[in-house]
């Protein structure tokens, strides 16, 4: 293979561990505005950069989000992306996975030729794992989800390992195609200070809905283009309290086994 042109989709997400619930109000508490790049997307980026290092070519980092998502793209540039594009516009906000994948597909059409698209398996905020497959369908290209290894890269095909519940499949897919990758595919590198400084000064293209309107219908962007609506957000229900067994270890073990026998769980 002579030069791989890859597009990597990245999303900036709230750092999930910071999301806690106020027990009295039952609402989300967030201290400050801590955000991070979706960790799975860093695996996607790492894989794309490694392919570039091996075969030559180019990596384009693509993100959609508010202006502050620029920091995710700077991180991508520091890690090894050559070009960064941010889709940012009020008209793109409030998008569900269908509108998001449509908008990303529009941007990719505008970017032009590519061999591969890499996405993380899912994001840590929404956890839907839908945008990758929906994007492939919008672009009319084949995809392989849950890729944990790229085994072979041919001129016009890839052979990859796809994780399934009980093991994995070895799958052959033609190029161009889209892959969603798992955390097992690689260990993402940390950018050096020098790379970070270089990325700080690099240009990030910002495209608005108008910039995409020559290739797409604006009515399919953002909230307007989203068929689903979140109508309620609440704390998961409290569980009912069980029984606490007491005694020394011997007694405890005996009581517990007796309970399990009573319930027919020990045969």
């Amino acid at each position, binding site marked *: 293979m002579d030069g791989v042109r890859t597009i990597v989709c990245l999303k900036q997400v709230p750092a999930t561990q910071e999301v806690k619930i106020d027990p009295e109000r039952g609402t989300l508490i967030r201290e400050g505005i801590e955000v991070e790049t979706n960790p799975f997307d860093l695996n996607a980026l790492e894989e794309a950069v490694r392919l570039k290092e091996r075969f030559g070519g180019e990596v384009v980092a693509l993100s959609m989000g508010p202006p502050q998502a620029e920091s995710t793209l700077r991180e991508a540039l520091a890690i090894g992306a050559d070009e960064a594009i941010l889709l940012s516009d009020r008209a793109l906000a409030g998008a569900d996975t269908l509108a998001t994948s449509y908008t990303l597909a529009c941007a990719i059409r505008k970017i032009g030729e590519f061999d591969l698209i890499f996405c993380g398996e899912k994001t840590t905020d929404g956890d839907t794992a839908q945008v990758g497959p929906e994007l492939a369908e919008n672009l009319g290209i084949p995809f392989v989800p849950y890729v944990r290894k790229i085994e072979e890269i041919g001129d016009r095909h890839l052979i990859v390992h796809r994780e399934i519940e009980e093991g994995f499949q070895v799958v052959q897919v033609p190029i161009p195609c889209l892959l969603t990758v798992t955390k097992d595919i690689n260990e993402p590198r940390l950018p050096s200070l020098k790379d970070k400084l270089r990325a700080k000064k690099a240009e990030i293209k910002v495209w608005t809905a108008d910039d995409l309107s020559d290739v797409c219908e604006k009515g399919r962007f953002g909230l307007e283009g989203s068929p689903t609506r979140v109508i309620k957000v609440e704390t998961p229900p409290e569980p009912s309290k069980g029984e606490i067994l007491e005694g020394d270890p011997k007694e405890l073990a005996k009581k517990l086994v007796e309970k399990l026998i009573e*319930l027919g769980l020990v045969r």
Partner: protein
Amino acid sequence: MAGTLRVIEEKCTGCGACVSACPYGCITLVEGKATIDESCCQLCGVCISACTEGALELSEAAKEFEDKSKYKGVMVVAEQRRGKIHRITYELLWIGRKLADKLGEELTCVLIGKDVRKYAEGLVRKGADKVLVYDDERLEILREDPYADVIVDAVKAEMPSILLMGGTSFGRALAPVIAARLKTGLTADCTGLDVDEEGNLIQTRPAYGGNIMATIVCRERRPQMATVRYKVMKEAEEDPNREGLVMEMDIPSNLRDRTKVLKEVIEEGQSIEDAEIIVAGGGGIRAPEDFRLLEELANLLGGVVGASRNVVDKGWMPKSRQVGLSGKTVRPKLYIACGISGSVQHLAGMKNSEVIVAINKDPSARIFDYARFGVVGDLYEIVPEMIKILKEIKR
């Protein structure tokens, strides 16, 4: 025109609930009123639920309506692996039947594979009114391309109002392809499903690592699509006298077929998701070899060993044994949590187990809130005692 989030100033008391609720930090209080930074707001709507005064609203642009009345009934997609029906299918039939009965409409099941025709009557006995069978060589292994084509064909033939698929790794990859093709809404990994008076599917799913539950609707597009989390719904019971229609469908011409499965490598004997008894270890386990203790207990009970994320991350147990939001969801008859504190993420993967036993030194561990039986103590003392007693019983 895009939507906007608006503050109704007369109603806003400046309590700040929305400020702390906003996951993106886009709301501030200015002169005692909530003020939204529009360049930052993602229109996620979390603040709307947090506001007790009803002072926030999402305005949407007018949109065209599709004729929803043409769509009727519930459709579920049966899942098979290597020629055997996967149990998620029975869970889909259970919830699908419930929704169809509430709507007073039909439940259709789509059965796809090679030599699978023989299963159709069984799906009727489990609650389907109609089974559409797509039987073909190319459909032997579940692959997105040909499967999406036949499911879209089934949707066009039946025009269901609701389309449910398994929240398995296959279903979660396949459903988005269909949703994108049909340009409809899809909600991932639902843990609760209901219908309202207007026939809208009310979909509940965890978000933000299980910290919150979100309720989602798809009012204007049909079919309303959802994947259903495995092991959350009950399994449909068999009714030997149930009758239904079985239709052998023609395979659509020009079936897409771009990916090839060269080989399938099975690494797991019994999947942890199908185990009836699980003995799981977490942060209280001191060394990787100590899992042998849990293994011994599991063997005596006829179960398998599971693990929480931190021990899997340390490499002490394989990923396939990880229980939790980023691992497997399980619903065994018995789940014994040894030295597991009970993070939200772990609980999301096992709290629907029929009986939960928690063994933990820390009496304030969250796992105790979910346990039917809580044992406050050292697992290194209690588990060996249990093993001793069980061995005596077996003798």
